């Protein structure tokens, strides 16, 4: 199954343009194409399969090409001082604006949890000290102490709006970097929505995507449980979550994808721009030389300081 699927992805399909009749070769993971001869936009619809369900929803592009390129330029120039200089000077190349396949996941999460809940209380204690005249005196002060009580229980909640990548070309971390998408602007999928744009079909298996969704859901539950705990503080939170009544829908998200080629010998860096909000995300290549210099300067300062203290003694 997986072999057949990956072969199919690598394959190309031959279609004929419905406007001028010319034959087009198309990567089989794409849902759209534009005829190079007559510029007609075509939308390809395949029968849905387990790993390639039909899209339910689509979020339309809001940010246009110029704004996206501008956002990437200002993002690159504002990256950390440890970024490679050639990266900061590189010009981003636009690959394409693409409708990225992603899954919108929801479930009911039932969790058992246990934690140590810290409840504060104050105590008055006496202590001895020396006053300004050098006499030993006894004084009292109130101190805040914490008593720990164990608490265990059940927690149920809906998990909604978990978004995970369904494209092998974009990791979930890369997608998370440009989230959130405003899901209030969700549209029911219509082929006309992606016409004229690049749109991918899912290239990750549904099992993979379920796993990603589960991980994100458990992380959400953990955050909720931290907010849920009573007491002045808590520690040692342990929980086990069971997800049931799951729903998963394929949604196409608008993404501008840029490649930054900053050195001949390095692979280009992928930078994504949220096509709805303009948020930029990507991995910044760190300059080993800059980091080394910074470390050396740090060591020199500490060393000089230590030396100064040693010589003053």
């Amino acid at each position, binding site marked *: 199954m997986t072999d057949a699927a990956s072969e199919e992805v690598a394959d190309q399909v031959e279609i004929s343009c419905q406007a001028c009749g010319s034959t087009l070769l198309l990567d089989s993971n794409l849902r759209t194409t534009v005829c190079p001869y007559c510029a007609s936009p075509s939308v*390809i619809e395949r*029968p849905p399969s387990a790993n390639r369900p039909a899209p339910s929803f689509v979020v339309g592009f*809001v940010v246009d090409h110029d704004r996206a390129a501008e956002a990437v330029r200002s993002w690159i120039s504002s990256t950390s001082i440890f970024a490679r200089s050639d990266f900061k000077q590189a010009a981003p190349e636009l690959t394409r604006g693409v409708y990225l396949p992603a899954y919108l996941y929801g479930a009911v999460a039932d969790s058992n949890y246990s934690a140590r809940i810290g409840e504060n209380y104050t105590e008055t204690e006496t202590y001895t000290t020396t006053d300004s005249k050098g006499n030993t005196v006894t004084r009292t002060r109130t101190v805040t102490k914490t008593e720990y009580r164990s608490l265990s229980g059940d927690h149920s909640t*809906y998990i909604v709006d978990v978004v995970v990548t369904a494209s092998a070309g974009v990791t979930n971390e890369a997608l998370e970097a440009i989230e959130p998408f405003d899901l209030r602007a969700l549209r029911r999928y219509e082929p006309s929505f992606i016409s004229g744009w690049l749109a991918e079909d899912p290239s990750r298996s549904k099992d993979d995507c379920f796993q990603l969704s589960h991980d994100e859901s458990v992380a959400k539950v953990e955050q909720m449980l931290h907010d849920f705990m009573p007491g002045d503080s808590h520690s040692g939170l342990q929980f086990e979550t069971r997800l049931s009544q799951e*729903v998963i829908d394929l949604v196409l998200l608008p993404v501008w994808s840029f490649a930054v080629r900053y050195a001949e010998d390095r692979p280009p860096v992928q930078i994504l721009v949220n096509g709805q909000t303009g948020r930029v995300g990507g991995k910044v290549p760190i300059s080993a030389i800059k980091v080394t210099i910074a470390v050396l300067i740090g060591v020199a300062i500490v060393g000089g300081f230590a030396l100064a203290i040693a010589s003053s003694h």
Partner: protein
Amino acid sequence: MTTAIQNCERCESPLETGDLRCSICGQASPADRPHAETLTIQILRCKGCGAATAYDIEHQAPSCTFCDSVVEVETVDDPMEQSEGYLPFTTGQDEARKAMRHWLSSLGWFRPSDLTTSARLEQLKPLWWVGWVFDAESEVSWAADSNAGSRRSAWAPHSGQVNMTFDDILVSASRGLSQSEVSAIGPGCDLGSIRDQPEGAQNATIEQFDLQRSQARQQIIAAIQNIAAARVEQNEIPGTSFRKTSVSVVLRKLITRRISLPAWVLAYRYKGRLYRMVISGQDASYVTGTAPYSIAKIIFVALCAVVAFLAFFAVVAAR
């Protein structure tokens, strides 16, 4: 008017026209468009001029580059809330007037003695205010600190889970009436008597919802959480004092009705100042409002207290 089209398959809350997903659990609403059974390639053509259409950023929709017409697509619909029905006025102006006099005379000794006789009614207006009435089932998980089982600290943690049903719970959407006014007169309404048209009063002010559906749902869910937390504190958590109560509510079958409820809004003048009263339009015994205090009486009581206090000290000191 927004209408429920069908129930969500998962949590059985009604979906309304324009909902792409259930607002409670996030389940997608069923689409009417069948999916392709075989590989199809299509060029989507403009219905106006026949040219190929493509999604256009400027229009936020597929549009034709030649004739600039926009293709209609199904989007999340977020209309303004509209009232679905009116509770009729069953009390008249005279009853409202009577209720005012009665209320003013029942306020107690600290009010001016001539309040009932000198208060002059300036305005008496019928008002239909807006609110949501909802029913729902839910599973509520809770955790809280309470004094029960406490040791050195005054607080001990507790947790639990409970099924809760909500029946005809009224949540105010009114801008004209304050929250405390609504909670005072709300219980006087008979929610079973909803009519299609305003009935029982002339020249009434009819308040409109000024919220969109999505905001309304947020307000309702926030209200449900507050009610759940209050009920948990009342019935579930052991002990008598509580803090840090958190609830997590899994809702099912949330059914919301948007209704207009009747109230008499009165303004009366006492010694040059205006005071306001609100009376339920269905049961004149539900009354709330503001009224002056008698400064003279309060000073008198305070002086008496001081005198009594001094006398007590004098007696104690003399012994």
